[in-house]
């Protein structure tokens, strides 16, 4: 399919997600507790599914251990200790640059 059409479908889906609760405006000041719990599970579940896929899966099945996994551990530690996105990425990149050379 045309790449532009794919981008636009993804954009519409993303916009609808963004506007979802906001669109209800004054009719929805309180989100039901159960929905709130489900929503709060989205970041850990989605982010971990993506991170695990890119770290552990290669083109055909499981990916062997390499400098990426060392770097991922370092990134994880830095993220845990500092909660700083830029620092976490830079620390990981520094490891792949050093170990990968």
């Amino acid at each position, binding site marked *: 399919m045309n*790449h*532009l059409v*794919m*981008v*636009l479908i*993804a*954009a519409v*889906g*993303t*916009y609808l*997600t*963004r*506007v*979802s*609760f*906001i*669109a*209800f*405006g*004054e009719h*929805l*000041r309180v*989100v039901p507790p*159960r*929905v*709130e*719990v*489900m*929503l*709060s*599970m*989205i*970041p*850990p*579940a*989605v*982010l*971990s*599914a*993506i*991170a*695990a*896929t890119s770290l552990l*899966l290669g083109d055909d099945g*499981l990916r062997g251990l390499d400098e*990426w996994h060392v*770097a*991922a551990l370092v*990134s994880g530690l830095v*993220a*845990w200790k500092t*909660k*700083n*996105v830029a620092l*976490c*990425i830079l620390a*990981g*990149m520094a490891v792949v*640059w050093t170990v*990968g050379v």
Partner: protein
Amino acid sequence: MLAGIRRILPFTVIAGPFGLIYGVTAAENGVDTFAAVIASFTIMGGAAQIALVELIGDGSSWFVAVSTAIVINLRFALYSATLAGSFADFPRVWRFTLAWAMTDQASMVAIQEYEREHDPFYRRWFFIGGGIFFAIPWWIGSTLGVLVGGEIGPGWQLPFAVPATFIALLVPSLTSRPKIIAGVVGGGVAVSLHGIPSGLNIILGAFAGIAAGTWATERTGRVEVAV
């Protein structure tokens, strides 16, 4: 508006390079240049855009590629729900425009600020300031990346920035036992389903993680009530 800009500045440092990574990834996966640039203005979500262009490059079906991008962006529903109460005081046009400028960073900064500042006029200008000033380096970086493309050599190890970004966002989100369960199940299911089309494993892993985390929360909730 100035306050919003000031608060978002520490995050804008990462928006430019991250945009560059997206742009280069798009170019290397043979994504149409115009479509790749437009994505940064319309989808405006780096993680989803990177997944989308990688799946296009892998030759996945358009449905899987588009659905994966949308599932990755489902987290915006969380910000939408959190911000809905504050946004309710804004004129309709503002609500629907600000929704477009919603990024992880702009939302998190605004959610914190709204705890202190209650004036709707201040609140909406704060959001537009943070939203736009985070987006500008993202637009510049990604456009540059798409145009420069393959000129950036493999020695830079840019692809590692993709998992690194997700780790950077994931680790701080693991603030409770149920959320850790959501993460473990989400990642575990996604990896164990590696035989199925790429992208689909992320969607199924994500839903499994959300279900497991919700179940774990409700279970502990009942236990607390019983005690």
